[in-house]
């Protein structure tokens, strides 16, 4: 094994994302050092933009714009229909799939939103993350 090989994480790699979220902060990853400098999500040991391995946690503004969205009339078991979900593009760059706390008819591509901690909208077994909040996008007034 080379010196470059990382140690096995002593806990779930992404734990800090959930701990910070529970604290109301959005803690993603950013490519550091000689890498491309872009923020990315989900957090992981390799920058998906450039392949760089010098990556670090970074707190980002929870604000962004709705990139796309849908209203599912047929939903998985444990989820009430209809279910509004979409992709939020954060001002920091990354896109997140989130439930959206709004009526479908009130949304357009580009609606300003914030990603905030929230209870998950349905019943998915989250294992050891069950006690952490999930997240959702909430429309906000344009700045």
């Amino acid at each position, binding site marked *: 094994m080379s010196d470059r090989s990382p140690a096995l994480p002593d806990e779930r790699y992404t734990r800090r994302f959930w701990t910070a979220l529970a604290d109301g902060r959005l803690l993603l990853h950013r490519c550091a050092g000689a890498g491309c400098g872009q923020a990315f999500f989900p957090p992981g040991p390799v920058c998906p933009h450039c392949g760089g391995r010098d990556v670090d946690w970074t707190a980002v503004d929870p604000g962004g714009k709705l990139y*796309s*969205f849908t209203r599912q009339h047929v939903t998985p078991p444990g989820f009430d229909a209809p279910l509004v979900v979409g992709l939020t593009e954060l001002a920091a760059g990354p896109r997140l799939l989130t439930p959206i706390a709004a009526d479908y008819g009130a949304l357009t591509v580009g609606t300003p939103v914030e990603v905030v901690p929230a209870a998950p909208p349905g019943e998915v077994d989250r294992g050891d993350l069950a006690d952490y909040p999930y997240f959702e996008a909430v429309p906000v007034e344009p700045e």
Partner: protein
Amino acid sequence: MPDLLDGWPRSRRRGHTVTDAYITGVSSTLDREYDLPERDLALHAILQALDGAGAEPTDIDGLYLPKPRPWAEQGFFSTLVSDRLGVAPDRRLEVYTGGTSGGNAFHAAVGDVRAGRVETAVVAAVERNSTIDTADYFEYILDIFDREFQAPAGPSVPGIYAQSLQRYCHEFDADREAVAAIAAKNRSNAAGNPAAVFGEELTAAAVLDSRPIADPLRLLECPTPCDGAAALVLTAGAGGGSSTAPVRVSGVGAGHATSHLLGVRDGSLARFPAVGTATEGALADAGTSADAVDVFEPYAPFPHVEAVITEELGLYEPGDGAAACVRGETAVDGPHPVSPSGGCLGRGHPAMVTPLLNYIAAVGQLRGEAPIQVPGAERALTTSEHGHVDGVTATVLEVDG
């Protein structure tokens, strides 16, 4: 510059010994429900395809299958099938990569035939969606999403494609009814295909009148799962046993995007770069171009996917793929016929089998035996995809004129 070697068998084109793979036998069966074990459906398809190729089970030296769905009763399916067929192939594999499983199995077979490792390959697939209830299917689908970050939001497959459709209309100012026209075309094409399960003469307005599944996608724009099986025999050389025109596999290509269901990070959700990579690779391997393809049988489970595929092929500008359908350009008598078989939407969509159904539809065209025939078709291109077009296979088939 035109490729002067266009259409030459690759063995001669490359100037060294590469064996060409030919499709010499095909078989498929498709219905809403079959009350038969997967085993019997698969064995029937394989034996019928062997008959078409003039081959016997003992000729099989390569067996390639998509791994049946997790809800299929029988595990270790390829060994069971070998045992029942009485064969001991040199190569045998089961592959599971979602909707590209059939494409990857087929390409593995082509690779082994071209390399001289296998002379008579059978590619077979079976799927029964009648055996899984909706709740269990949704649970399975939730598990293909990122369990930690995506699944708790409750996404569905139509829910993800609905979002690329939103972007398609938003970014390219595409007409929503033009997108629906693609679903109408494919379901109407299927009405002329006796092997299709969901054929119906439809207008775009009727498609948009069906109930919403995941806005803005409507029911008639979503594929209906069904039961089915298919098999193809691939042989080294055209063989003598086949009574019909041998169809040569002239090009294979694959594309794999850095994405997991939510599109690539650096680009638009309404572009599918894996399609471009895969089709470029297949067309280059065949020494030809998209313009020279006579008929397309893509894996397009939702209508805007078909539009984007024609755009990624370079046939149309982004956003114009849907309008091209309205102009009749992708109809069977248009310059670029797409999905004359009815495709995923019109035929019915057992995802493990669909890539094989696309090959078989293309073979029908090249043999001049398709129920809705593109006159004089000599070159066809098919695709398969999985997830949200995260991975793609593309294949070019030709008859040697």
